Structure formats: C-alpha cells, structure tokens
C-alpha cells in the first residue's frame, strides 16, 4: 500500500518536473491568489473564468484544426494566468477579445512555424489599441508582495535551471541601468526612489515570466541578448520621455516582430517545451 503511494508520488513528481511550464503555472497561480486575496484587486468576478474559457477554447480549436500537440493547452493556461494578472477591463467583450487575440496570435503571426509575439503581451496591447477599453495597472502590486515575488522568481530560476535567464538579465540591465544613470547620477534622486521603481511587482512579473518566454524570442543566443537589451532601452525611453505606463509591455509588443527577421539572419536552436531537448533547425527558411 505504502509502496504504491510512494511510487505514485514519485511518478507524479517526475511528471511535474519534466516540463518547466508546470513550475511556471504553479507560481502564476500563487501570484494570482496573492493578488485576489491579499491585495484585494478589484476585478470583476467573471474575468478569470471568462479568460480561461476563451483562451482554452481557442487553443482547443487550434489543436483540432491545425493538429497542434495536446500539451499546448498548458501554454494556453499560462497565457490565461498572465492575462488575469496583467490585464484589466470592466467589459466582457474586451476580455473575450484579449483572450482570443492572445491565443490566436500564435496561429496567425508566425514565420517558419514559429510565432513571434508573446501571446499574453499581444493580447493585452492589441486589445488596448483596438478598443481603448482595457488597461494595465502597474501599481497594483504595491510593495507588499515584493518578497513573494523575489523568492518566487529565485525559486522559478532554480527549478527551471535558469533557462533563458540571459533575456531577463539583459532586459533589466538595460532598463535598470538607464534609469540608474538618469535618476541617480544625473538628476540626483534619492536611492529609494529608484528602489521603489524596481520593486514594482508588474516589472518583476514582466522580467521573469514574460520576456523569458523561450517560444517567441530570437533563437540565436547573442542576438537574443541584444534584442532583450533593446527592449529594455525602448521601455526606458517610453517611460522616461513619454510617460507611458507599463512601458515594458509596449516595448516588447513593438520589438516582437523583429524576432522573425532576426531568426531569418541568425539561426539558432529552436525551443520545444516537452522534453527540453532542443532540436536543430535543419531546413532553411523559405523565401
């Protein structure tokens, strides 16, 4: 009896740790619970179920029509969590549109079989641009969840063996470095004004859970680092000079199409989720 339970548990653990997305789902779930119950986010009760419903249905349609693997539902779950964590709207149609755009972007915006938009990112930005009825609340985390975030991120990096960490680091180096130079060295703001900027939960969520998406970022490592650095610089420019709230999301949205161009010129290893065994791209892209 006991052995059965033990072998069952270890099999479950093996299954769980075979896919980095499981960890990501766990952390996003914890963040969402924190937002809902510790930070009392004011979001309509229907937003979460509706987002999941639309995202999963769209993904299922993709699986049936485009013969995608069934495990891609996990990616749709992650996208749903990201949308619930980042996107706000008080209208059902807007939430439906965001979830639909997010998932279907993977089917439509792709070159050489690889989608170049981060699904949640394009869902949020395109919906805001189209309808003007959604918004991002960068201040919604306050500083209370900061420890949760830091430890969550560390934990995530440890358990996923830091895949795509270079993306997070080069983004934060560019964005943070630019703000550090401008605010501390040039404008002489006190240090805690800068720390306050960096303890924004939305920024950390973006840095470690959105821009690190291996599926929609450039394949070549050096190119990837330069690309993430440019996202950071653009985010800084939009924030500091144009007062764009949630500027990292907009910077990523604007620079995502570059991914396909960069992939064309710089070949690299393509990412696949399931076994974390990268497969070489052997076929040359069609002209």
């Amino acid at each position, binding site marked *: 009896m006991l052995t059965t339970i033990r072998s069952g548990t*270890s099999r479950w*653990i*093996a299954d*769980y*740790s075979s896919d980095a997305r499981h*960890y990501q789902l*766990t952390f996003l779930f*914890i963040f969402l619970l*924190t937002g809902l119950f*510790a*930070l*009392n986010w*004011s979001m309509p009760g229907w937003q979460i179920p509706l987002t999941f419903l639309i995202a999963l249905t769209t993904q299922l349609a993709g699986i049936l029509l485009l013969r995608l693997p069934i495990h891609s539902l996990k990616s749709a779950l992650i996208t749903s969590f990201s949308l619930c964590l980042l996107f*706000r*709207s*008080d209208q059902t149609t807007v939430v439906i549109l965001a979830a639909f755009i997010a998932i279907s972007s993977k089917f439509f915006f792709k070159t050489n079989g690889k989608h170049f938009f981060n699904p949640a990112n394009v869902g949020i930005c395109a919906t805001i641009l189209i309808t*003007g*009825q*959604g*918004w991002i*609340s*960068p*201040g*919604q*985390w*306050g*500083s*209370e*969840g*900061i*420890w*949760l975030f*830091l*430890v*969550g991120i*560390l*934990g995530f990096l*440890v*358990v996923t063996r830091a895949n795509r960490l270079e993306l997070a680091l080069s983004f934060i180096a560019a964005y943070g470095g630019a703000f550090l130079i401008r*605010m501390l060295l*040039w*404008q*002489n*703001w*006190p240090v*805690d*004004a800068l*720390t*306050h*900027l960096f303890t*924004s939960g939305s920024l950390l969520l973006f840095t470690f859970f959105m821009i690190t998406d291996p599926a929609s970022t450039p394949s070549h490592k050096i190119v990837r680092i330069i690309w993430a650095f440019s996202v950071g610089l653009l985010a800084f420019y939009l924030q500091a*000079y*144009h*007062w764009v*709230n*949630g500027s990292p999301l907009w910077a990523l949205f604007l620079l995502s199409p570059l991914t396909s161009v960069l992939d064309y010129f710089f070949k690299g290893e393509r990412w696949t989720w399931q076994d974390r065994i990268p497969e070489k791209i052997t076929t040359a892209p069609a002209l």
Partner: protein
Amino acid sequence: MNKKNLLLALLFLLTQQQVQAFCGFYVARADAKLFNKTSQVILVRNGDRSTITMSSDFQGNVSDFAMVIPVPTVLQREDIKVVERRIFDQFDAYSGPRLVEYHDQGPCQRMYLNESVQAAATMKSRAPVSDSEMSREEDMYRVAVVARYTVGEYDIQILNAQESGGLERWLNDHGYKIPDGAREVLEPYIKSNMKFFVVKVNLEEQQRLSSQILRPLQISFNSPKFMLPIRLGMANGEGNQDMIIYAFSQKGRIETSNYRTVKMPSDRNVPIFIKDHFGKFYTDLYKENIRREGYDNIFLEYAWDLSGQNSVKCDPCPSQPPLYNEITEAGVNWLQSGGWSGYTGQLFFTRLHVTYNRRDFPQDLIFQETPNREQFQCRYILNHPAPYINDCPEWGSYQEQKIQSRKNELRELATLTGWDVSRYREYPSYFQGYRAPQPPDGKTGSIHQENKNQKTKPFRPQPTELVPSENDPIGSNDVKLPDSIAAISQDDFVMQDESEQGEKKDLSYGFVALAAITGLFLMHRKKP
C-alpha cells in the same frame, strides 16, 4: 519635445502662519511652528492637458503669505487663475464617506424604504485675471525671472533656475527662509527643466477685494506627465501629511501607476450609535485600513460617472451633485452647457485620499487615466429596529435575528476601526433607549497613537433631515420610518501624525514563499 521632458507642477508654501499644506514644503520668514494639515487638490486631465487647483486654508496676516510653485512650462497669464474656495467644499460634501440609515420592516409590517437628501447651496464662480508686465532679469543666482503677473490677489513671478544652490540663495536673499535639505529636494526638479513660481499676496489688490480669505490658485499646462510632486512637501515634513484629490477625467477612473490604489471598505452594517460619532468612526476606520493594507497605498473613496446622460449622479446623495459652473471652474473645459442635467458630455469623478510621508512615498504620485467606469462610494449602513407591536407572534424570532445581526454589527465595528467594542456589549439586546458610551479615546486595539497635543477639530456629522416617504404604506400616524444619510466633511478630517509606523507584513510573505520554494527545490532534486 522639450516640453515633454518637463516636470509637472509642484508647490510649496512660504509662511509663518499655520496653513493647509499642499504637496510642498513649508518655509518661513521667521522661525515659527508649522504643521501640515489636510490639503485638497483638484486635478483635471484631458489628453495631455492638466489643470491643478490647490486649496490653501491660510489664516493670519496675508502679508506673511508666500508660496513657491514649480511648474513644467513658463505659464501664460491665462493659464493661472484664482477660483472660489466653495468648489472644494462642494466636491467634498458630494463625495465624502456617507452613512445611510434604514428602518427595519417589523415582522408585522410591510417593507418600506426612503432616502432623504440634504440639499447643498449653489455657488457663484469668479476668476479674475489681471494684467501685469512681463520682464526678464538675470542675476548672480543663475536664476532668471522670466515672467511677472498679477492674478487676483496674487503677485506671481516665474523663475528659471539653473542650479539648486542658486535658487536656494535667491529665495533666502529675497526674504524666504527655506528648510534644511531643500537644496537636495529641489535639484532633481531643476535638472528636469522645471520653472518655479513665487507667489505673494498683492496687498493693494487684496485690500480692494476686502477679504481675509485667500482663494485657491489654479494652473493649467500641457505635459504628458500626470503627477503630483509630493516629495517637495516632505522636505521638512515630520510624520504624515494628508491629502484629498478630486480628479475629473473624460474616460474613467484615475489611479496611481506607481502605488497601489486600494478601495476603502464600504457597504458595511454598523451599529446605529455610530450616527453620533461618524467622524471619529471614519477617521479610525481610515487609520485601521492603512495599518491593514500598508502605509504605501493611496485610497479610493469615491468614483462616479458624472456624464450629462447619467441621471443618477450619486446614490444616495449627501449633497447636490457638482453643477456645470462648479465643474468648469475646476478646469473642465470639454462639457457643453445645456441639457436637463445642466451639461452634456463625458465626465468621470474620482476622489482619492492619501496619507504620505518620506519613508513610504519615495516617488512622486504618478497617475493614469483608465477606462474604468465602475462606480464606488464609501457607504456605511445603519439598520434601526422595527417598533414593537403588541400581539405579534413573529416578534420573538425577529428579536432573536436582530440580536444576532447587532452582534455582527459590533464585530464589524471592531474589525473596521480597531475599537474595543466590549463597552457596547449591551447594545445587541437594547432596542429602545440604549445610551452608547463614548467611542474609545486613542486607538484601543490598534497600533496607532494619536498626538494629543495637537488640536483636532471636533467632528460635525451633518444634521440628518428626516423626510417621510411619499408612498408611505403605513401612514404617518403609525410610526415614522425615515431613512436618511449623513456625510463626513473633509474639513473635519485631520490625520494625526503617527509616531509609530508599524511593521510591514513583507517578512511573513517572504517566509511563506521561502518555505514553498525549498519544498519545490527538494521535490525537484528527487527527480529520477
């Protein structure tokens, strides 16, 4: 492009009298004891255009009054106005936390509800702008006076400073005593190309107006920055400062993008004796809520769609909704006069309340306009028991339910305010003639401490007008069951400095998360 880099306006008051603070620091011509009280600001945002109206409750010799207002651009004379103070009182009365009174339907009566409304007086608006000559002078301070205006009772000079030391010397040499540390606080704003106002009272104009009350000053400018620079106000600020923001926008609710915007608790059933202590109740609730939610938040107290086509401008209304001339005087310029509500066009009103200090607010308040049109109000509910009626068989079970719900009201009261409610233990069972003891002095059950040396104005819950319903099914001879509301006035709201800031909850979050991560890590290691 250059304009886009400029910072928004900020303001600090120079005076030796006690004044109401805006988000600026106090500087004095003589050593005088100053303390910051609650300040009020009206923000109007339309595209890139901001209008900021600042209320200063200056009492004393007007020749001592002076003020410095840094602004993003060199404002033209038509961008500066004085407005009537009454619009602040109107917006405050309209949007303040409110108490609603209901009378239970007895077990042997039919349900009936009514709400009465206190009317508010209308007001006239006036915003004189007078001419003055613009001049330019460079001096040894590296401070250039780029414009001079006389607006209403104020003389205004606009300064362009090259470096904070020069500005500090200029202010000192022109008779203003500014606090230590002002230089460091000024520098980031000068580096961002800020221009500075210096405002004094024009004594001749002021005598001609024959009023001792200085009117609020209103400035408008175009800048993508939508923020209030509260940091300057904390240069000499010891402890907390309190600010109420009335914001008008076209699309929807205003929220802060670099701090958490938290809704105040609302729609709670509280004991009926709260009616006599509503002011104390709400201030203690506010403090307790800050303690619970964290000190670095901004609180939403009211949000309502005031568009011309929205017929319900408040529900219930503690005072008359803002009128067209009040709204336009506040700086809203996109509405068209006319229509049955006095105007047509989109308008959304947000009331925010923030208690800030140097430690918890290292950055200025940055706002964003969201398309969120969800309405919100701070509303607390009193339920009066039904009158006893002889020979009513259901009375017994009604009474039991009522006792239970009154116990819940006491529990709610303890949670909301942190009061020790054991003093009210007789309340649940006394339906008639219960005399509630005074609310606890200080902060029983809370970490807040009140500075008893500071004078606090007593709260004046507004008198409730009891109006019987027109469709009263019971009849006026039976028993009057009026429902009414009372509103809390912002004038009465004075936050005390808190000597104890309280510990943050961050660490406990950290420990829980650390434990979770350790677990995950160990689990991961077990992977075959």
